[in-house]
C-alpha cells in the first residue's frame, strides 16, 4: 500500500537525492499512480539551466575592487571584535541607505535563532551596539527628520511610550537636549530588547541621536569615541546603557551628554 508522494519526495527524486530504496519505492508508486507521475512531470518543469543562467553574473562581480579590499584587510588580531560587525565604517553606502530610509520602525518579529546566533557573534556586546548605532545614524540627514511629528503632544506621547518600553521615564527631561528640541522618539529593537532612539536636530551639525537600551552590566562613566565618522558618547546607569551619537564636535556633544546623564540619573523604575 503506497502513500501519496509529496512534492518534497518528488523533488528529491528529480534532484537525485533519494536513497536507492526510496527511489525504487517511489518509482513503483508512480507506475501505478498517474496523478503522482503527472505531478512529477509538472515539477520537472522547474528543471532549468540555473548554473548556466547565473554564470555571467560571476563576470559582473567587481573582482578588482573586492581583491583590493581583501588585500587591504589588516591582520584580524589588530582589530577590535566589534569592527567586524559590518566591515567598513564608510558612510553613504547606497545599499544600506536604501534600507535605512523610512526608519519608522515598530513591531518586529525577531527570529529567536537569529538572536541566539547573533549574541554568540560578539564578545563585546556594547561595542556591537555602538557600531550599530553609528552605522545607522550615519545614514541620517536633516531630511530624515522632515516628517517628524510637529505637535508637542504627539512628541510627548512618543517619549512617554518609549519610556514605558524601556522602563525609564523620559519625559519631560528628554524633550530638549540643551537648546535642541526633540524631533522624534521611537522604539527599535536590538537583540530582542527594545532600543529607544530619541532624535534631535542640530541646525549646524545634523541629527543627534540618543539611544537607550536596558542593561545590567553596571554603571559606567562617560566615554568618548569616534566611530564610522561620528562622535559617540556612551555611559551606563545601573539599569540602562546610553549612546549619544552625532556629527557635533566632541566637546559640544560631551556637554550635552553630561547634562542628559544628570537629568536621567536615578530615574529607573525597572
Amino acid at each position, binding site marked *: 500500500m503506497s502513500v501519496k508522494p*509529496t*512534492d*518534497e519526495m518528488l*523533488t*528529491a527524486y*528529480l*534532484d537525485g*537525492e533519494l536513497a536507492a530504496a526510496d527511489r525504487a519505492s517511489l518509482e513503483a508508486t508512480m507506475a501505478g499512480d498517474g*496523478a503522482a507521475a*503527472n505531478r512529477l512531470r*509538472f*515539477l*520537472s*518543469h*522547474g528543471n*532549468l*539551466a*540555473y*548554473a*548556466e*543562467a*547565473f554564470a*555571467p*553574473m*560571476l*563576470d*559582473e*562581480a*567587481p*573582482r578588482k*575592487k*573586492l*581583491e583590493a579590499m*581583501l588585500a587591504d*584587510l589588516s*591582520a*584580524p588580531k589588530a*582589530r577590535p571584535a566589534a569592527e*567586524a*560587525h*559590518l*566591515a*567598513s565604517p564608510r558612510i553613504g*553606502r*547606497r*545599499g*544600506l541607505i*536604501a*534600507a*535605512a530610509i*523610512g526608519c*519608522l520602525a*515598530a513591531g518586529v518579529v525577531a527570529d529567536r*535563532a*537569529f538572536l541566539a*546566533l*547573533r549574541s554568540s*557573534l560578539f564578545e563585546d556586546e556594547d561595542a556591537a551596539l555602538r557600531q550599530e548605532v553609528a552605522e545607522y545614524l550615519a545614514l541620517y540627514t536633516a531630511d530624515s527628520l522632515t516628517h517628524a511629528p510637529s505637535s508637542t503632544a504627539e512628541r510627548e506621547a512618543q517619549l512617554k511610550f518609549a519610556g514605558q518600553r524601556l522602563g525609564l521615564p523620559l519625559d519631560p527631561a528628554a524633550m530638549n537636549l540643551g537648546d535642541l528640541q526633540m524631533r522624534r522618539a521611537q522604539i*527599535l*529593537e536590538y537583540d530582542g530588547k527594545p532600543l529607544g532612539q530619541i532624535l534631535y536636530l542640530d541646525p549646524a551639525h545634523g541629527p543627534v541621536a540618543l539611544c537607550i537600551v536596558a542593561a545590567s552590566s553596571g554603571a559606567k562613566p562617560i566615554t568618548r569615541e569616534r566611530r564610522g565618522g561620528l562622535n559617540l558618547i556612551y555611559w551606563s546607569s545601573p539599569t540602562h546603557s546610553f549612546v549619544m551619537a552625532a556629527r557635533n564636535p566632541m566637546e559640544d556633544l560631551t556637554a550635552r551628554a553630561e547634562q542628559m546623564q544628570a537629568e536621567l540619573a536615578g530615574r529607573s523604575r525597572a
Partner: protein
Amino acid sequence: MEAAIASEQEIRTGLSEHVARLWRYGLTLSHHRDTADDLVQATCLRALERAAQFASGTRLDHWLFSILHSIWLNEVRSRRVRQGQGFVEAAEVLTFDGAADTETHILAIQVMNHVHALPEAQRSAVFLCYVEGLSYREVAEVLQIPIGTVMSRLAAARARIAEVTAPKSPALPTREKAK
C-alpha cells in the same frame, strides 16, 4: 600560533579565489550591488578573524557561503525587516552590458527572473543547490537548517517555477500545493 597563521593564509587565498562567487550569492540575496560588495567585505573580515575555526580539509567555499549568509540574515537583512522595508529594485539587478540580445542571454535572464521572484528562503536554497551544485546536506549546513526544510523549500520553489514554465494544458494536474 603557527597553525593559526597558516590557516589565515589559507583563508586569504580561498577568499581571493571565491570572491566572485561570494559576491554573486550576496547579490542574489540582497538584490543590491552595493550590499553585495558590503557582504563580501564583511565576510572576508569575519572569515579572517575566524580563520582558526575553519576545519582544514572541509569545503572552504561552503564555509564562506555560510558566513556570508549569516551576516546577511543577522546583520544586514534584519535592518530592513526592522525598518519595515521590503526589497526593492529586484528588476534592475542585472544588466548585461549590451549582451542581452542573444537568445542565450534572454533565456538566462528569464531563469534569473524566476529565481529572483522566489521568496528569500527558497531563493537561497535554489541558488546553493541548483546554481552552486551543493547537495541537500551541504545546503542544510550552509543555511543551518534541517535537511527537511531544505527539501520543502526546494519543492515549493520548484512548484512555483513550474507554475510559470510548464506548458499550459488542461490535462495538467492542479493539485493543491502539496504541503
